[in-house]
């Protein structure tokens, strides 16, 4: 079952190795192009040659030599490049988690924020801001650590609430998640309501979802973490196909559905906690990108999952570039751009290929 490579060959007309390689290869090239494009735009104009020299500097990794760089290079190396990459990884993670949860919960409205883990992370960050904790710990910023811890606690809580007799029924998972979401959100609202308005404005701005330029250690940790979980999800892609046929069918096909569900829930929750910790709640990407990609390439998760991840990454990187530049030097919350740019496009797709929805 897990031997995906051989099963691709067996799916024949639906999904061939050739088609997989073409689509994913094309999307990888497109992603590269998008990343380079995003590096061109920002609050300050940096010409193409500076982009090139800055990238050369980074490749040579002379961190100590950064003092000799000019402002434009610093902007490229320390701000724009890490932020664009972070946007890409966050977008990819959001879309992949969205695909997985939509299949796992068999609910087209599922997104990474539906199961309460996100609120746990957000509450962790809110508490850290409320108590004025905000620094670095072992080179990593403290806010994401608090967020991640909050997400982990929420994960354990939902798991304990939802499971019964060693099983993890989907409906109780969804209900426990939604209810915990509501409770934790109430705590966050409480915290913002007791804060001095200037500070709660800062917290709200964080909650709305924003990408900031992370330091390279933080970016590296997040990227490695995300890629590992994405690889695990990719490894389970065929099981998602089976699960989306229904649990009964999956079990009759010899799948250990309980084990798979638990693993998938844990993986998506671990990734969601990390996403929210670094970027707050950026809406829309996790729910709509999977649908849009499904409309275009079909619902075989072995292709849908990686394709959604790449499209999600490109989409968020582009949306964040708009958020950075539209009102420059001021920024707007990236969630506004993802909804305003993605919404109409998705509606267009929906009208164009209504028959292939779900």
């Amino acid at each position: 079952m897990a031997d995906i490579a051989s099963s691709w060959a067996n799916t024949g007309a639906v999904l061939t190795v050739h088609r997989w390689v073409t689509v994913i290869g094309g999307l990888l090239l497109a992603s590269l192009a998008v990343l380079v494009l995003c590096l061109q735009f920002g609050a300050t104009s940096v010409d193409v040659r500076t982009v090139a020299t800055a990238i050369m500097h980074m490749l040579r990794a002379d961190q100590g030599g950064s003092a000799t760089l000019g402002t434009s290079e610093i902007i490229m190396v320390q701000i724009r490049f890490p932020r664009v990459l972070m946007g890409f990884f966050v977008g990819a993670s959001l879309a992949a988690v969205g695909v997985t949860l939509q299949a796992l919960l068999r609910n087209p409205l599922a997104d990474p924020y539906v199961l309460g883990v996100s609120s746990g992370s957000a509450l962790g960050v809110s508490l850290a801001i409320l108590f004025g904790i905000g620094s670095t710990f072992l080179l990593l910023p403290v806010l994401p650590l608090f967020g991640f811890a909050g997400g982990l606690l929420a994960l354990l809580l939902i798991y304990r609430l939802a499971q019964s007799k060693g099983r993890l029924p989907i409906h109780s998972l969804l209900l426990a998640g939604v209810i915990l979401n509501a409770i934790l959100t109430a705590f966050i609202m409480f915290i913002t309501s007791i804060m001095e308005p200037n500070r709660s404005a800062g917290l709200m701005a964080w909650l709305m979802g924003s990408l900031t330029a992370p330091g390279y250690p933080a970016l590296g940790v997040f990227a490695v973490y995300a890629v590992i979980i994405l690889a695990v999800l990719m490894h389970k892609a065929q099981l998602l196909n089976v699960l989306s046929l229904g649990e009964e069918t999956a079990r009759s096909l010899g799948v250990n559905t309980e084990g798979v569900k638990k693993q998938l829930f844990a993986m998506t929750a671990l990734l969601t906690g990390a996403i929210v910790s670094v970027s707050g709640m950026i809406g829309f990407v996790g729910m709509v990108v999977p649908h849009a990609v499904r409309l275009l390439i079909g619902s075989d998760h072995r292709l849908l999952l990686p394709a959604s991840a790449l499209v999600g990454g490109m989409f968020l990187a582009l949306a964040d570039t708009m958020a950075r530049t539209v009102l420059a030097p001021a920024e707007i919350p990236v969630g506004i751009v993802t909804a305003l740019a993605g919404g109409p496009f998705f509606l267009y797709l929906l009208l164009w290929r209504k028959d292939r929805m779900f």
Partner: protein
Amino acid sequence: MLIAATAAFANQDDETPSMTRRHQGILTGMPFMAHVSAQAYVDDAGRRMYFAKPPTRIVSLAPSITEMLFAMEAGDQLVGVTDFCDYPAEALKKPKVGYSNPNMESLVALQPDLVVAPNDFLKPDVIMKFEQLKIPVFILADKNVEGIFVHIQTLGRIVGRSPKADAVAMQLREQVAAIKQRVQGIAPVRMLYVLNSQPLITVGPGSFIDQLIGMAGGVNVAAKSAAPYPRLSMEAVLQEDPEVLVFPVGKAEGISESEQQTWRQWSTMTAVKRGRLHQIAADWLNRPGPRIAKGLESLAEILHPNHVTSSRVER
């Protein structure tokens, strides 16, 4: 009944103030009221209001307004303040009513004859509720520094402390003028005011703090942002290269010490190279009240340590 007699809203019609006053006096069985010279006050929301006699049960819905009322020695007329009114110390003893979403029941229980509220932060439906309850609300909008002094004088006339309020406002104007004088001719210093660090929020054109930066001999690096409180791009900050970073600090609001230290990562920024990361009391600069001159002086000292402190010594 008493409230209706002493203060009321006029509709948007063309009644003259004296007519309204006389009608009120007659209608409420207090004809002597008709002879009180009525004065119309227009608040910053454009609502006109009359006061036959100075309100004695005032609720303040902003720390800056509380400070104004105490500064004009009208503290004993104040019966309710926000959770964040901590200056002067007497304000802490006043009953609390919340802040942006005040507790209407405890507010009404205080039987206020005037509520003074800021334009920002307050939920819009709160003002409608006051109007339903026939509690006069006077709204102050913080636009610029002179507006703060005008607010002090207007409030002074409303609450019957006009001489003191005018004196406070005049003194503040003199202090501001003196500071402007002292920094005149000195090369302005590029600075960034870090209202919130993550994500970065600062002050832009249209906020009184932006105006104070200019008065203190500074140039706001966020001057090109088209919003009073913009989320500023870090790229723009590095491009504009501030020479001084100013962080508000305080009990209720402000940037924590550890958060300030994270700014040292921008090692090419002139402010970081010169070690010019400074703290300013958030209550002085962020509150559009009578301590704003202190905030301005403090800011001028931060920006021009040699000029401003030395001239003070010469005095």
